[in-house]
């Protein structure tokens, strides 16, 4: 690239210094050498595979796929523009945002991968530990540093976790991959109870920061809601607690059976003994070595200081007038914004779920459009949500009409956040080598079935999650309606679960009955939704109605006729 745009001055992203940049350059040089040795035959595929995976390069169904870490889902506009550049130069002009706040490029060539990593390094990004049995990209609340209900800004701690886990000498050959999520808000927007470790940052009565630590949650073949390990870990002991937990897992986690190797199985099998072992590790640690000094927290937190918010008031006249004048705008504001801590500001969710589109896909043109709008309206900052949408975290309420008008021409103003067409979907068998069935076309057909916005609004909050295999990248277990595609004697069939939840009331959905065909699954979803509409109490959401009614009326509607 000839010249990179400047980092927007007010974007609060962690900025690499000379030490970080040198580290990343060394890593790229190492990988460039490894690719060369693969191409010249010095390395066999068996030897090369773990090396490429450690740099995020998978071999998928149709091509190599590069998975790029978006650390805790936070991007500045320079970084997003670079992702657009990479998409256009080395891929087919688009990228796919994932449920782990990463982006995937689906059409990568092996020899291009080192150049793609070099382009990422120019904007302080990498693909390290986006695969392999190590600590993966740490995820957090897409409204971090902005949400009105936030108690502790999780971003400094997420960055500390990112650095601490990078090429960790002890935890790079774990029994299985390891996913950590952290939030600092009482409303859980990170699925904390469904991660290997979920952290909820909070404050005690003295105002000191501490961490509620959940362990052993997860989806996949054995979905389990996590267990609370500690209620309040003091900030100084944060990393020591992570170390101790991972040591117990590394020593005792199962390694023979890949389906029993996640920490959730160990925690389930050990019960209270797991906590005792973690406490023993903590007690044996030398004083000081793993302490997290408050000076380090403060120095990293300085990267995430609030941008220079103007002194504004909520509900400015310009917004009120536009809301009254334009129903489409009012609907978008109602569905696609989230309350902000600063008066007169709001966070805006940009839907990557147009009717009939591929959930989470964005073209290079769209990425650049979002970057332009983030520079104009959001201090040059963007977030990626685990629901596969983008977020402008800090938008003036008075700017909402202009932002709405500017998003529309790019197909980015779909007002469906939290509605039936805001579907989480993994890539499924259209791209993924592990998949047993397609996911994307099912999502497309469901959103087309419910294309009518008024119908979606009437149905209300409803999360439909679709996975194309038991690994559950589409989080189907925790969808209000979850869909799992499996292979049955060469045919794609789809199992449906109901009543899942990924938030504070985390729950694993219940299998409703026999699977549906590829053609029949959309009808089944419609039947479920019609049943809900027929049975709901006034104002009752799908999830609440299901919890009150249980599966009986849904089973009846789906299977009685057969």
């Amino acid at each position: 690239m000839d010249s990179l745009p400047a980092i927007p001055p007010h974007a609060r992203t962690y900025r690499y210094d000379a030490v970080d940049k040198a580290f990343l350059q060394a890593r790229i040089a190492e990988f460039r050498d490894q690719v060369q040795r693969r191409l010249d035959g010095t390395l066999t595929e068996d030897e090369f595979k773990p090396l490429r995976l450690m740099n995020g390069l998978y071999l998928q169904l149709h091509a190599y796929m590069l998975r790029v870490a978006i650390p805790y889902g936070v991007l500045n506009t320079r970084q997003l523009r670079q992702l657009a550049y990479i998409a256009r130069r080395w891929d087919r002009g688009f990228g796919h945002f994932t449920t782990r706040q990463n982006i995937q490029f689906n059409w990568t060539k092996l020899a291009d991968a080192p150049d793609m990593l070099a382009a990422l390094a120019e904007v302080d990004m990498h693909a390290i530990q986006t695969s392999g049995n190590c600590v993966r990209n740490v995820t957090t609340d897409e409204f971090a540093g902005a949400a009105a209900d936030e108690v502790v800004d999780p971003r400094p701690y997420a960055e500390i976790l990112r650095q601490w886990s990078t090429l960790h000498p002890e935890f790079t050959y774990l029994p299985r991959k390891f996913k950590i999520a952290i939030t600092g808000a009482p409303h859980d927007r990170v699925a904390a109870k469904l991660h290997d470790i979920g952290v909820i940052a909070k404050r005690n009565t003295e105002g000191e920061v501490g961490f509620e630590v959940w362990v052993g949650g997860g989806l996949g073949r054995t979905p389990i809601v996590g267990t609370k390990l500690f209620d309040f870990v003091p900030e100084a002991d944060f990393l020591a607690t992570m170390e101790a937990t991972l040591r117990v897992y590394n020593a005792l986690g199962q390694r023979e059976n890949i389906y029993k190797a996640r920490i959730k199985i160990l925690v389930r099998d050990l019960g209270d003994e797991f906590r005792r072992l973690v406490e023993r590790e903590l007690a044996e640690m030398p004083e000081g070595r793993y302490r997290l000094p408050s000076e380090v927290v403060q120095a990293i937190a300085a990267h995430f200081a609030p941008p220079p918010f103007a002194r504004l008031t909520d509900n400015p006249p310009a917004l009120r007038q536009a809301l009254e004048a334009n129903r489409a705008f009012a609907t978008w504001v109602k569905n696609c914004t989230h309350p902000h801590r600063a008066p007169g500001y709001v966070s805006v969710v940009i839907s990557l779920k147009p009717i009939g589109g591929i959930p989470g896909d964005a073209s290079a043109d769209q990425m650049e459009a979002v970057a332009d709008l983030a520079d104009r309206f959001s201090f040059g900052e963007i977030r990626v949500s685990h629901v596969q949408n983008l977020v402008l975290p800090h938008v003036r309420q008075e700017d909402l009409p202009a932002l709405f008008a500017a998003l529309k021409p790019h197909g980015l103003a779909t007002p469906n956040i939290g509605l039936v067409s805001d579907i989480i979907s993994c890539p499924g068998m259209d791209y993924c080598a592990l998949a047993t069935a397609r996911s994307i076309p099912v999502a497309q057909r469901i959103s087309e079935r419910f294309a009518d916005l008024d119908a979606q609004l009437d149905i209300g909050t409803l999360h439909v999650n679709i996975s194309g295999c038991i690994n559950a990248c589409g989080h189907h277990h925790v969808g209000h309606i979850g869909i799992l595609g499996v292979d049955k004697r060469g045919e794609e069939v789809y199992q449906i679960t109901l009543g899942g939840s990924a938030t504070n009331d985390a729950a694993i959905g219940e299998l409703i009955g026999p699977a549906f065909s590829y053609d029949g699954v959309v009808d089944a979803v419609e039947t479920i939704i019609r049943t809900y509409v027929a049975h709901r109490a006034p104002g009752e959401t799908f999830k609440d109605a299901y919890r009150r009614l249980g599966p009986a009326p849904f089973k009846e509607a789906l299977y009685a006729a057969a």
Partner: protein
Amino acid sequence: MSAPAKVKPVTAPVLLTANDLRDGRVVWLTSDGSWTLNVTEARLFAPDEAAQALALGQAAERLRQVVGAYLTEAELKNGVPMPRRFREKLRAVGPSVDAEPKPSLSLAS
């Protein structure tokens, strides 16, 4: 990505497929020993040629042409070979969804 290594007796005609080492694209072995992106140009091996086909795949791996070569059952449809398994059909014809950004997404919604 290689398919699960199941050692089953081959009873149907098969194609030899793999991913190209350099770009990862799905490729099929042709009659002249080259690899093609176009499944209709692929060589259909009789069941008793399966071992020979697999050996050709392993040789191509050693020559660093392809990665993860394996056999997949196929049949002739309208005179050209087409794999039987759904997954392999998807590999042969590409994603069933748009693999390019939709022009409509960058135009007025």
